[in-house]
């Protein structure tokens, strides 16, 4: 048969498509008409797609999803943000010093307000005095910048505005100011260094020093120290020169001299050898000459710098000046000096005065300019700037003092009108060094910390409101950065004994120490938590459940976690680096630590509760063809489970984030064990998955067109669909990523068990689907034909079965067992492995049984047709019937189809079943027809047919049903024999049987025999141990010789020996020669029967002792004399039963006289 040869090719293809299964599976699914897919999905609204998509996206498009989610979150946040603003904007009337939660702000604003007012009252108390001072300052402007920057008039009017002084009062106070004494001004000069001075000494260097004096008072000179042998001296020396009159026309003179100690000419000459070059030589000569001429020593002027005081700005300056000398054009060098004004005022008074002034001016500036909160950055108007600078100059405040004043004033104002944080961070930067290195008086230090205390709330508020969406991201980030800088400076400067975080102002700060709290890190941590907490609470409040169902609850939790994750994402991407850089604070980690606790407390109770109340699905409610009986159509029992799963995934990802973010603390996080909350849910998810899978399988089978998916494969769409479903279950499992090993193990056991259930269900549905197919009925006949659909059904189930084992592998069974090994040791590992393997093999066995069942169904459907043709063939064979041909055609066609469509394993299986069933059928035919006394020809025909079929289809070597078939064939062969042949069959069987004897109660006979041509010679020699036949204990025996089969030797005599009386050891010693025809000689299976009998006295009723057979083929063919041949000894035997096929066949031939007579004789021979 061709089909059989094709097997190998098919096998090759089979292997090929096994390898590519999954990829093809996916491809096919992709290529297949979407309609089917979508129709299957419609069953459950894309249940697995929802689950599956989560996974795929997570796996393949995590990035994209991340973005998408962020966008989503951003939108959500955007929706929330405006509301946020509205809420916040409700309280702008209250001083917006802390715009946080109302209770905190109200409380701290109260206290701060008092503080501020008191401050202001104090200011009002001496406001006139202050104003007078202001006017006085204007009147006595110093520095170069007075005239051209802003006119005095403008300054007066500005001051009047700023101090809100009415005109009359202004004039009055102006008078007071004008009558006041001129201020005692001092000019501070620091001689810093000089460069490139002209060499004055013979050695090419100079020994410079500086003399400084005011042009108005040349007698009052100051000298610096002498720097020897240098042209680039560094002095860094300070001088204070009093300015007596208020004239600005005075000039500061700085003279650089080369120092010449008093030397004698002789001493000078001693230097002769130090002289450098010709020029040096001429200098020295000149010097000597001068010394010699005047007889006195004299310092030599290198150069002069004259600085009109009018060129010095009020705020002071540092400058390089070129040195000049009368009538000289050559470069003399440059000199660097720092010049500033100061006054003889009391520093404390001046500082306080300056603070008040600065405050009033700043308040005025803010009022006029309407600058936005957090914006102002010391950008005073020129008038304000000049007023303040003048005051600083005239009061002689140092830079540090000014910075301290500014810091204090700004911090105070910042409470009401927030100023730029950059301003503060710059001031702190300026103050950092002085505060650390200089000796600052107690009061100033206290001032600083008080100011800091005022500044801190807004700083922490920025940290808390980091999520506020009002301003753009850049601004927030800049603010945060500045705030962090500020905090860092404060941390560096601290600690202090001032309570920076009074608990009435910061109820949310968890300070457990004693005494004043200046733990900025702690406050920062609390601020972060507080901010996150407020934000989270806001989300929760605004996320109120829609309807309060558990699903909406879950959806809210999911949304919340998504928002938190995006917040964390932002923290990681933007803020974390600032926090670490500036304050060495791990912002994201701190945030995560807070969130994880909140998420845990928010989710755990709900999850546990919902899990507990999850509606369990009852798969036993599932009815084929109907689906599940949904008791309550309004509640989708699956939506809850699905949402719960989404939440699980959301938390899972949140936890993964934490694992990366806080590897050290991770193990202490409560949320780490989040999966335990879902414990109960998992079982339900698995149930849902099975439920869905069963539904889909049913639909897939229903929609299966039962055609090959493509030409390379042997199964149809539902197999692929079913596999897709399994793949989706697996996807679900991968996604679940259950962390607990013991749970994993049991869940896997459950999944495998469930998948088995699905397979079985699929097999059943597939079988039901094809059941009615292939029946052909027309006027001539009714028959079953194996169709492609049947084969596809079988292949489909087999295909699904094949995937079971890879499926379990994909579930990660080995990994889990490995973990169990590590966790529990080899004993438990083995038990678990055994369990899983048993479950798997059970599943595979069960599905295989389903396949076998289907194969049997096919065969059972074929059998009636075959049976009918067999009977017809047996009855009509000789009459030129074509029944056998038709039978062969039928079998050929059907097996052909099966062979083409099925894989080798299943084809062999079905062949087995065919032969088994055929054997059964034929046996049944034999039984029935023996009863009906069919002639041997009937069986003979049947036998021929069977041999024919076996020859064609059956390789007898690999046949499990061989024995049964052999039996059937044997029975058929025997029944096909004519009666005489049948009788001979009996004899042959006996001959075989007797040859087996090793002893016998009937005795043993010795003889010789040979063929000589067509003549047979038999010498009966003796017998021994014959059975006792007489009452006397002896026998009277003789031997008769028959040739068998009887009907072939009808003309041949049956000779016998003489009777030997009364002995059990008779010596016969008789030789018989019988002539045969050549045809008789050649008879196959010819037998010589030696029958030993006991002679009856009367000779009528000779008793039978025993008999033995000699086969013709065992008789030597020789010309030798008989006496030369060896004696042959044979045990005598008797038939013992009817239990052979031949005898049974004879028995069944009730109407056959010959058979009847033979059986009668035969019965007599049987051992009594």
């Amino acid at each position, binding site marked *: 048969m061709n089909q059989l040869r094709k097997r190998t090719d098919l096998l090759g293809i089979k292997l090929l498509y096994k390898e590519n299964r999954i990829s093809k599976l996916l491809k096919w699914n992709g290529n297949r008409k979407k309609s089917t897919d979508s129709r299957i999905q419609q069953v459950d609204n894309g249940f697995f797609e929802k689950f599956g998509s989560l996974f795929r996206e997570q796996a393949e498009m995590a990035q994209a999803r991340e973005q998408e989610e962020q966008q989503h979150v951003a939108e959500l946040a955007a929706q929330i943000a405006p509301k946020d603003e509205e809420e916040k904007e409700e309280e702008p009337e209250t001083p917006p010093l802390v715009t946080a939660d109302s209770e905190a702000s109200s409380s701290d604003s109260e206290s701060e307000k008092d503080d501020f007012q008191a401050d202001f009252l104090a200011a009002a108390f001496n406001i006139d005095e202050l104003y007078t001072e202001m006017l006085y300052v204007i009147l006595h402007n110093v520095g170069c910048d007075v005239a051209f920057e802003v006119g005095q008039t403008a300054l007066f009017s500005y001051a009047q505005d700023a101090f809100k002084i009415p005109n009359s009062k202004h004039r009055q106070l102006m008078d007071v100011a004008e009558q006041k004494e001129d201020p005692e001004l001092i000019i501070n000069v620091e001689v810093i260094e000089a460069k490139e001075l002209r060499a004055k000494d013979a050695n090419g260097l100079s020994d410079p020093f500086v003399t400084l004096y005011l042009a108005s008072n040349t007698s009052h000179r100051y000298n610096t120290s002498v720097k020897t042998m240098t042209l680039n001296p560094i002095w860094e020396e300070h001088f204070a020169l009093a300015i007596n009159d208020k004239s600005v026309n005075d000039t500061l003179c700085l003279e650089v001299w080369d120092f010449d100690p008093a030397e004698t000419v002789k001493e000078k000459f001693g230097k002769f050898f130090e002289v450098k070059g010709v020029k040096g030589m001429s200098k020295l000569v000149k010097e000597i000459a001068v010394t010699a001429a005047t007889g006195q020593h004299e310092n030599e002027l290198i150069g002069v710098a004259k600085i009109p005081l009018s060129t010095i700005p009020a705020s002071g300056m540092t400058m390089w000046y070129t040195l000049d000398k009368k009538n000289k054009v050559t470069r003399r060098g440059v000199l660097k000096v720092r010049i500033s004004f100061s006054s003889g005022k009391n520093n404390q008074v001046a500082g306080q005065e300056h603070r008040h002034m600065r405050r009033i001016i700043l308040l005025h500036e803010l009022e006029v300019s309407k600058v936005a909160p957090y914006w102002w950055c010391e950008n005073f108007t020129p008038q304000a700037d000049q007023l303040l600078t003048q005051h600083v100059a005239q009061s002689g405040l140092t830079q540090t003092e000014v910075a301290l004043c500014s810091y204090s004033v700004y911090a105070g104002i910042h409470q009401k009108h927030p100023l730029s944080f950059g301003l503060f961070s710059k001031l702190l930067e300026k103050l950092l060094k002085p505060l650390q290195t200089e000796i600052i008086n107690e009061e100033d230090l206290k001032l600083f910390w008080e100011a800091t205390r005022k500044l801190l709330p807004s700083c922490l508020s920025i940290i808390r409101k980091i999520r506020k969406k009002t301003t753009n991201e850049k601004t927030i980030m800049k603010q945060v950065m500045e705030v962090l800088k500020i905090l860092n400076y404060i941390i560096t400067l601290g600690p202090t004994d001032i309570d920076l975080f009074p608990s009435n102002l910061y109820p949310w700060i968890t300070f457990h120490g004693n005494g004043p709290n200046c733990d900025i890190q702690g406050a920062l941590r609390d601020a972060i938590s507080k901010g996150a907490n407020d934000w989270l609470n806001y989300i929760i409040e605004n996320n109120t459940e829609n309807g309060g169902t558990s699903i909406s609850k879950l959806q809210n939790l999911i949304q919340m976690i998504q928002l938190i994750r995006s917040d964390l994402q932002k923290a990681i991407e933007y803020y974390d680096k600032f926090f670490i850089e500036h304050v060495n604070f791990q912002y994201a980690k701190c945030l995560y630590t807070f969130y994880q606790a909140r998420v845990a407390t928010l989710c755990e109770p709900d999850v546990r509760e919902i899990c507990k109340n999850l509606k369990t699905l009852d798969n036993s409610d599932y009815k084929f063809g109907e689906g599940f009986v949904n008791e309550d159509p309004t509640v989708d029992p699956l939506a809850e489970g699905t949402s719960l799963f989404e939440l699980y995934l959301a938390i899972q990802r949140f936890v993964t984030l934490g694992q990366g973010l806080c590897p050290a603390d991770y193990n202490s996080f409560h949320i780490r064990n989040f999966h335990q909350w879902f414990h109960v849910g998992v079982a339900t998810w698995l149930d849902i998955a099975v439920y869905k899978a069963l539904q889909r399988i049913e639909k897939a089978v229903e929609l299966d067109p039962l055609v090959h998916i493509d030409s390379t494969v042997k199964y149809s769409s539902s197999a692929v669909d079913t596999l897709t479903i399994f793949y989706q279950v697996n996807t679900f499992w991968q996604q679940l990523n259950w962390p607990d090993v013991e749970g994993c193990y049991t869940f896997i056991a*459950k999944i495998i068990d469930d998948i088995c259930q699905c397979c079985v269900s699929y097999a059943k549905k597939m079988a039901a689907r094809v059941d009615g197919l292939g029946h052909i009925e027309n006027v001539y006949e009714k028959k079953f034909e194996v169709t492609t659909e049947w084969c596809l059904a079988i292949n489909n189930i087999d295909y699904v079965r094949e995937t079971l084992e890879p499926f379990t592998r994909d579930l990660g069974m080995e990994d889990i067992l490995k973990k169990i090994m590590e966790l529990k040791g080899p004993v438990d590992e083995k038990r678990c492995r055994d369990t899983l393997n*048993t479950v798997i093999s059970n599943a595979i066995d069960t599905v295989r049984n389903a396949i076998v069942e289907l194969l049997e169904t096919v065969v059972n459907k074929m059998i009636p047709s075959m049976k009918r043709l067999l009977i017809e063939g047996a009855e009509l064979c000789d009459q030129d019937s074509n029944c056998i041909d038709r039978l062969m055609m039928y079998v050929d066609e059907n097996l052909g189809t099966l062979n083409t469509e099925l894989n080798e394993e299943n084809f062999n299986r079905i062949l087995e079943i065919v032969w088994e069933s055929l054997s059964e059928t034929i046996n049944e035919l034999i039984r029935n027809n023996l009863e009906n006394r069919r002639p041997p020809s009937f069986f003979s025909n049947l036998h021929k047919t069977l041999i024919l079929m076996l020859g064609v289809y059956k390789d007898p070597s690999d046949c499990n049903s061989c024995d049964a078939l052999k039996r059937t064939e044997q029975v058929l062969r025997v029944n096909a024999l004519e009666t005489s042949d049948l009788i001979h069959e009996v004899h042959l069987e006996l001959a075989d049987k007797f040859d087996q004897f090793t002893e016998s109660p009937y005795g043993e006979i010795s003889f010789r025999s040979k063929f000589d041509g067509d003549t047979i010679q038999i010498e009966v020699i003796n017998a021994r141990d014959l059975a006792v036949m007489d009452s006397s204990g002896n026998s009277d025996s003789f031997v008769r010789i028959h040739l068998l089969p009887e009907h072939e030797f009808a003309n041949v005599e049956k000779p016998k020996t003489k009777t030997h009386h009364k002995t059990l050891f008779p010596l016969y010693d008789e030789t018989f020669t019988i002539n045969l025809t050549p045809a008789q000689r050649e008879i196959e299976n010819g037998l010589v029967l030696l029958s030993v009998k006991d002679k009856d006295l009367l000779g009528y009723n000779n008793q039978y002792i025993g008999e033995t057979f000699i086969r013709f083929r065992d008789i030597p063919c020789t010309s030798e004399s008989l006496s030369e041949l060896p004696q042959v000894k044979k045990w005598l035997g008797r038939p013992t039963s009817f239990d052979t096929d031949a005898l049974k066949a004879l028995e069944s031939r009730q109407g056959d006289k010959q058979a009847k007579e033979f059986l009668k004789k035969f019965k007599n021979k049987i051992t009594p």
Partner: protein
Amino acid sequence: MRSTTKNPLLKVVILGDGGVGKSCLMNRFVSNQFDEHSFHTIGVEFLNKDLDIEGQTYTLQIWDTAGQERFKTLRTPFYRGSDICMLTYAIDDKMSFKNLEMWRKEFAYYADLKESNQIPFIVVGNKSDVSSEAREVSQLEMETWCNENSITSCIETSAKSASNVEEAFKMAVQHWLRLESRADINETHVNDTVDLSKKIGDSNRMSCCVGGGAAGDDDTNN
């Protein structure tokens, strides 16, 4: 390849407190082994065993469960679809006996039993090899409890001495068979139900409570 699996399949679940010897019972029954120091079962364990009853071979698929509370969620998914539930306690542990009620309820809940009449429970008191001083639950208590809960099959076994172990499983299957046949009969003969509330010894009662091997009782009234 198909011969062995053609048998009717019965899913058996063994329940009971941790340490009463569920796994030991199963291992004694399936592989005739006993390990005194066996560990806790992880979640579930599964084994197959063929059992001949009146000429018919039944394949028992036995799910042995972990009794500890922490495994509850892991074992309950396996209850559904069971044909037989074996409620197990140890006769030297009163608590485990008292907990039978809890186990019965847990099974009924998670197996989604619909008709209370059809609950295929069998009660097994294990460790019948302990001395009579150690015994905390008498056979009468067991029978009374079963009676109150309409459970008709109970037996005392010892996985250690192998006493009554196979009998317990056989009894379980026979019990199932009766339920099956009764279910069939009920369709035709509605009146042919057995009043389970009648006292022990009532000849009508299809009771098959069997005493522990240590006590050496006759296997009574069935």
